């Protein structure tokens, strides 16, 4: 079963991008989430927010075009875009906490069946980078997690209870991994899509949390 093919990061990002609606204000975390902006369907206008202090930025800067005064929260260089605006960190987080960001796409170390999110600290390291993750987790109207389904040692990241320190409890709405799409419902996780060749049982076998299988279970919708 471990030999079944997992989706690559771009496909995961593409699936998440389908969730973004016309007019949404979206914050993209470091890693797979950053890739989502390339895959937003035609005809949808999405405004990107970064807690580095910019709204409405363009794509990643081309090599040679980097500007240390135009970065995202992961320190990546951005290209300018007409209609963008700059602000300080107080304003950037007022937007987040105040509910002005529609969607945050975040990576995760663990997500629980209640939607608890752990994405800032590996307990064995004893020290971690919280950055803006806790503010985004409580402030953005909808939290989508984009991640690999298991960690590097093959352990499940979709768990019954997070064993890692929480970023925020009960905040995640949707989990998109390299093998499955899961909705966080009031009474647990609903498996709605699987990667090509993966059955619900295959996904469950790599998932610690119990998955309810949607009657409409199907392939990844891209």
């Amino acid at each position, binding site marked *: 079963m471990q030999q079944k093919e997992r989706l690559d990061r771009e496909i995961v990002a593409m699936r998440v991008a389908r969730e973004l609606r016309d007019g949404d204000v979206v914050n993209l975390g470091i890693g797979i989430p950053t890739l989502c902006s390339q895959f937003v369907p035609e005809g949808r206008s999405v405004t990107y927010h970064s807690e580095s202090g910019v709204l409405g930025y363009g794509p990643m800067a081309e090599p040679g075009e980097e500007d240390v005064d135009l970065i995202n929260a992961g320190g990546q260089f951005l290209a300018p875009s007409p209609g963008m605006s700059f602000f300080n960190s107080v304003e950037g987080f007022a937007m987040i906490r105040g509910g002005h960001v529609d969607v945050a796409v975040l990576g995760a170390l663990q997500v629980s069946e209640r939607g608890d999110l752990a994405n800032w600290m590996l307990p064995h390291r004893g020290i971690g980078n919280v950055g803006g993750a806790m503010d985004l987790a*409580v402030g953005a109207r909808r939290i989508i997690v984009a991640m690999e389904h298991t960690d590097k040692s093959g352990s499940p990241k979709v768990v019954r209870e997070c064993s890692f320190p929480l970023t925020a409890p009960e905040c995640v709405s949707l989990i998109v991994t390299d093998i499955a799409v899961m909705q966080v419902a009031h009474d647990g996780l609903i498996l709605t899509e699987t990667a090509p060749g993966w059955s619900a049982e295959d996904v469950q076998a790599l998932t610690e949390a119990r998955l309810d299988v949607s009657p409409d279970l199907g392939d990844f919708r891209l």
Partner: protein
Amino acid sequence: MNKVAPTFGEAVADVPDGSVLMIDGFAGPGGTPQNLIRALRDHGARDLIIVSNTAGLASVIGFGTIPGDRPTDIGVLVENEQVAKIIASFPVSPSPSRPTAFERAYLEGKVDLEVVPQGTLAERIRAGGAGIPAFYTPTGVGTLMAEGKEVRSFEGRDYLLETALKADFALLRAHRADTLGNTQYRGTSRNFNGVMATSADTVIMEVDEIVESGEIDPGAVHTPGIYVDRIVEIA
């Protein structure tokens, strides 16, 4: 009321041991007062408490750094054993194999750390400058950040009580200032500079360019001059 200081060294010469400093350093060198940090290293004040978003990342992992550049950040103050404590949201390297100077010193027990969510850090600094002693925020409820903090419910949702942060000095970086200290930042380098300027007793800025008063559009001033005490032009 000309606020222009002749050198970086003179601008930081009166920082005593044990000071609380706010120093910008968001992710990369943009907005980081590299010259003032070097001057503070040369000055040598010790037992400093530093409030900053990171604890010195740009020089280690190249966050926000043009390839080939080796920017200065507060890591040099840690390496020089001038730092007693750092209050930050992003203190360690995201690459465990490339730890920061701070991280090594922390694990050796040489320096203390308070990790604060980035939005709470910004809001606490803002509160310090705005005469708000404490506020409630949803950030951190149900996490390690809530340990020892008051939790209170408003309209059915829980919030943490967080208190204001103030500093003795702020070392900041802006793009332009007039001789009265009216300041503009460039792009995303406004980040913590724009709020730390309000919350320190003595605010010291390095800027690309100093202009005469009246040359900056009064509607486009980011930090009004009353917040700024000393300005040094980057040669």
